[in-house]
C-alpha cells in the first residue's frame, strides 16, 4: 500500500505558498486541523483564501491566522464569533464570501467528485442568487452552484493509517471528508496514526486515495465553544 506519512505538520505544509487557496475542516472549533494551523502560523504565508465553515474565535483556530493577517479572503457560512474578523472586514483588509452551509458542503463535495455544477433550492429569491442561473424543475425553483476546489486541504481525523485512510469521531467529521476529496494536495492530521491494515476497511470514512500526506498530531486542545452540561 502507498505510504503517505510525513514527519509532522511543518513538513506537511512546507510547500504552501502565498496566495494559495486552502480548505480547512471543522465546524466551530470541532474537528479543526489544529496542528496544521499552528504550522501555517510558523510558516508565515500570506494572502491565503480560506474555505472553512467558520473562522474560528479570536484566539483559536483560523482566528489565529486572522490575527497575523495571513488571510486575504474567507469563504464560509457563518463567521460570528470573532472580533478581529469583524475589524478586518470593516476596514477592508479582509474579504468574505458567505455561502449557505448546505451549498458550501455540496460545492466542496462536487469539487472532489468532479461535478462542476449542480442545482440547489437554497438561496432562491435571496441575494445569494444574484448573478446565478435559476431554473425550474418539477415546479420548484433552483440555483446553479459551482464546485469548489483548493490547492491544499487541511483536515483533521480521529484515526488514520499510513495509507491515508481516515476515520472521524462524533460531529468532528463535519466538512472534513468532502474537503479531503476536494484538495489537490490533502494534508490529514490524526490523533492516532496506525499501520495500514489496523483499521477495519468497512469503518473508513475517507479512503486514502484522497490523502496525499498524513501525520500524527500533537497537543490537541479541542477547545469547546459552548460548554453546556446537565446536572
Amino acid at each position, binding site marked *: 500500500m502507498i505510504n503517505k506519512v510525513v514527519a509532522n505538520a511543518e513538513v506537511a505544509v512546507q510547500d504552501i505558498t502565498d496566495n494559495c487557496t486552502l480548505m480547512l475542516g471543522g465546524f466551530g472549533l470541532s474537528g479543526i486541523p489544529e496542528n496544521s494551523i499552528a504550522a501555517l502560523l510558523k510558516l508565515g504565508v500570506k494572502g491565503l483564501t480560506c474555505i472553512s465553515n467558520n473562522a474560528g474565535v479570536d484566539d483559536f483556530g483560523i482566528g489565529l491566522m486572522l490575527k497575523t493577517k495571513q488571510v486575504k479572503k474567507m469563504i464560509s457560512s457563518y463567521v460570528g464569533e470573532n472580533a478581529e474578523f469583524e475589524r478586518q472586514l470593516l476596514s477592508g483588509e479582509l474579504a468574505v464570501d458567505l455561502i449557505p452551509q448546505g451549498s458550501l458542503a455540496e460545492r466542496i463535495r462536487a469539487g472532489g467528485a468532479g461535478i462542476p455544477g449542480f442545482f440547489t*433550492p437554497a438561496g432562491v429569491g435571496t441575494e445569494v442568487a444574484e448573478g446565478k442561473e435559476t431554473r425550474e424543475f418539477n415546479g420548484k425553483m433552483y440555483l446553479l452552484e459551482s464546485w469548489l476546489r483548493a490547492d491544499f486541504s487541511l483536515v483533521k481525523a480521529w484515526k488514520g493509517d499510513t495509507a491515508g485512510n481516515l476515520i472521524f469521531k*462524533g460531529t468532528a467529521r*463535519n466538512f*472534513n471528508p468532502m474537503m479531503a476529496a476536494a484538495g489537490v494536495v490533502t494534508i490529514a492530521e490524526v490523533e492516532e496514526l496506525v499501520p495500514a491494515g489496523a483499521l477495519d476497511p468497512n469503518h473508513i470514512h475517507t479512503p486514502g486515495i484522497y490523502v496525499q500526506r498524513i501525520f500524527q498530531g500533537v497537543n490537541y486542545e479541542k477547545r469547546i465553544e459552548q460548554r453546556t*452540561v446537565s446536572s
Partner: protein
Amino acid sequence: MSLDKIGIAKRIAQEIRTGWYINLGIGIPTLVANYIPDDIDVVLQSENGLLGIGPFPKEEHVDPDLINAGKQTVTMLDGSSLFSSAESFGMIRGGHVDLTILGAMEVSEQGDIANWKIPGKMVKGMGGAMDLVASADNIIVAMQHVSRSGDSKLLSECTLPITGLNCVKKVVTNLAVLEIVPAGGFKLLETAPGVSVADIQAATAGKLIIEGEIPEMQLT
C-alpha cells in the same frame, strides 16, 4: 398577558407528531425539545452531522467532538447516527426532515422569511438557514410578534434581506398561533391566554385573517 419564550416553546411542542425527524434552530426552537411529551417519539437532527440529539452531558461526559449546531456540547441516544455535513444537508435538501423550527426577524403574509442579515450591521452569515427554509415542507417560525422597537414582525412584505420565499407554514408568537394560507395572509388560529383578537390585529402589519370564534391556546 403574552407568552414568554417557554410558553412559545410549549405551544410549538404541541405541533409535533410521533415519528417525525425535526431540525430545531438556535434560541426558542432549541427550548421546544424540553416540552415534547414522552409518548411522542421523534428524532432531532443537528445539521453539523448528528441524528438523535440527546440531553446536555453531565460534566464528566463532556466531549468536544460531540456538539450541536449551536456549538453546545450534547450527548447521543440509543439509535443515534453520525455523518458528514454533505450528508446532513442532503437529508435536509432531499426533504427527509419532517419539521423545521426556527426564529425570524420578519415573516411576510406570503410565507417569506428574513432572519439572517440587518443592513448596516455586521453580517455573520446565514449558516444553514437558507438550506433549511428552501428545503423543508413544514416550517414553523418561533418569534416575538413585534420587535423591540415595537414594529410588527408579521408584514405584507419583508423589508430585511430575504432568507427564503414562500416557505413558512405557521408562526407561533408571544401573542398568537397563525397559519400562512396559500393565497397569502396570516390566518389566526389561536390567541395567547389573556390576549385579545384586537391586540393581535394591532400588532400585525400584514393581512390578518380572522374567521369565526378564535380559541385560546391550551397550555399545560
